[in-house]
């Protein structure tokens, strides 16, 4: 059924790894707590119950929750690697320059 299954599978390996560590450290209570999904406890408020035929309009946009989306995390990592690479190339070019100066001096 689910799309992107392999990515979820990879992700699951990380999550299950963390869960295993947590289970070892915190015991069985941590596991049972983690298995209950708070989202499904939600209930449509009485006032928000839709009478038939009522026109439902968009609400004003709320600020998005402060979370760290996976793509942002991945992008940050890539950015860090890219910065490291640029730094490395610059350092390398500088090093090459010094080497050639040294070689001239030796001669």
């Amino acid at each position: 059924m689910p799309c992107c299954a392999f990515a979820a599978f990879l992700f699951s390996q990380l999550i299950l790894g963390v869960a295993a560590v947590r289970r070892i450290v915190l015991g069985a209570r941590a596991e049972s707590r983690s298995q209950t999904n708070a989202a499904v406890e939600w209930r449509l408020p009485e006032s928000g119950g839709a009478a038939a035929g009522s026109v439902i309009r968009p609400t004003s946009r709320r600020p998005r929750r402060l979370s760290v989306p996976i793509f942002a995390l991945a992008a940050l990592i890539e950015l860090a690697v890219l910065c490291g690479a640029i730094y490395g190339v610059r350092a390398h070019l500088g090093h090459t320059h010094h080497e050639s100066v040294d070689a001239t001096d030796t001669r």
Partner: protein
Amino acid sequence: MTTSSQEIASTYDLAAPLIRKRRSAGPITAARQRRSALIYATLCFVGLLPLFTKMSAGARAAGLGLWFPGAGFLAVGGWAVLLLPVTLVLFALALFAWFGAGMVVAPIIVWIAAALGAGSMARGEIAAASPYVVPALVALAFAYVHRRTQRLKRVGLAKLDERNRYLPSAIAEVVERATPVASAAQRELAADDLAALRYVLDRALQPIGELGGFDKIDQFQTASLRYQLNHLGYTLALAQCHYTPSFHGYLSQAQRNLIEQYLQKPIWDYWLYESAWGHLNFTNPDPASKDNIMLTGWFGLHVGMYTSASGDRRYADPGSLTFRLSRHRAFHHDLHSLERSVLQNFQDSEFCLYPCEPNWVYPICNHYGMTSLALYDRLFETSYAAFTLNRWLESLDREFTDDSGSVIGLRSALTGIRFPFPAAEAGFADFTNCFAPERARRMWAVARHDIEPLLTKDDQGNARVTLPGNGFDFGNYRQGWAGVYATILNAAHEFGDEEIAAAAQRSLDRDCGRRDDGGIVRYTKASNLSNTFAVRARIVRRDDFRNAVTQGPSAAVFTGPILAEAKYPDVLVARARSHGDDLDLVLYPGAQSGPQTLRLERLRPGAQYALIGAGEGVCRADETGAASIQVDLRGRTPVQIALRD
């Protein structure tokens, strides 16, 4: 005249009643793999050039770094060797970004950056052993992969032989066990089903922009809101199609809400990023253009099922499905353009099947796409599915089926590499039932054969499904079997196997934290996605998905009287069906017993109708064909509205 997609599929499948034996890799897959191997061989050759030409230590380290990510650090030697595992972890994360969000550039950047980094760190001479160690490691890795591939191939082929041996009798058993298709007269939601359906209605009847009761984790992976919205929509459309086709009111409103929710930018704007870092397309992030079948295929089916079940064709109007990016920019679509996108991508793709995230082809999403075409063909008398189905099925067999005859989870369109992931027949069979029923029956026979050993007895001696391990819920990335139980339940119902369906339902109720309170059934140890799928799986019966796609409700419900308004959740509708001039209702009080007002429409203007059931009497339709009636709801309340002579 349009050609039925089923006729085409049957012609193709009748030629091979058993699973075909094929080469392990199809021709396109093999070509992509050869291209990948050639590119890799070139990289290795280029990587060796600095060694042979006695270039600087930096160039030699960078060159070795082209053999695999971080290999250059072995050439640098010393403490730099510790950067190899760091690079491999980063590379794994980059691969994850590629898998998960189509970020093609991520692994390339990590690989090249690591090679350049190693090159910049090398001083004087590289580690003497590194020119031998790096190729040796690569050779070892290749030997391991080759050996594993060959072993899996042998196991797969043995499984294929076993399957082809048992399939004739297994298919016969599937046919024998299948309950008859329920007639329209028998269709009525039980009180438990209504309580389960309230879980879905509660979420769907929220103001646009509010998503209470949804799992909000990320918008790239399987927990994304778009999949939750789609499955809520499928469930309501199936309920409307088979149980309450003559009830519009809050049921149609709920489905339209879900469609409108889907058009909100936070739901689909993941494509801005994926088209940028996956297609390197920074100018036209139209979500229904190239690739992205996880949107067009799923959403097309969602909108199509609403259109079919309700008869409401508003989403066929130009611009009715507009994805608005900003005040100044929007992508104007409708059901036609969504389905044209699916068809066009099928035609343009060498694999026929095409990617979700850039470069990743998921056969399951392509099943959604093909099903959406089959539904669209019926609604608008086109031949999109018939036009492409033969090629699609052949490609599925050749490029996306493993040695055992099972459809694989995913393949990289770019490299041709298949990544191992269990994809079960039960998950594909109900879709296949919509456009290739013979093949679907074969898939369910295989699934049933695999499920049977998992049937055990509970403490009361009733059959249940017992699965090993803790499971995984794709809707929230936590442990749990709810999604798998629901998948088995759904497929078992679709193929009329009530024994396995009852066992799966029992496991769901026992293992997944079933809670019944406030008139709502839900599973606390399951994601919203799995909860929703469990509702759908609970209410469908033999061939319901297939018939919703290939037939839809009977013609009479689109002309006869409808229940147009009822208050939610005070009035729960278990049955609403017109046979032409009448309206047959079964209602339950959602909160308290007592009188409720209902509004009827599409009555004959000025005609008198008899009310039989709760609050018997007579009502007269006004000049628009509408009337309001009062009924006294106490438990299960049948109400019949019949035209008086």
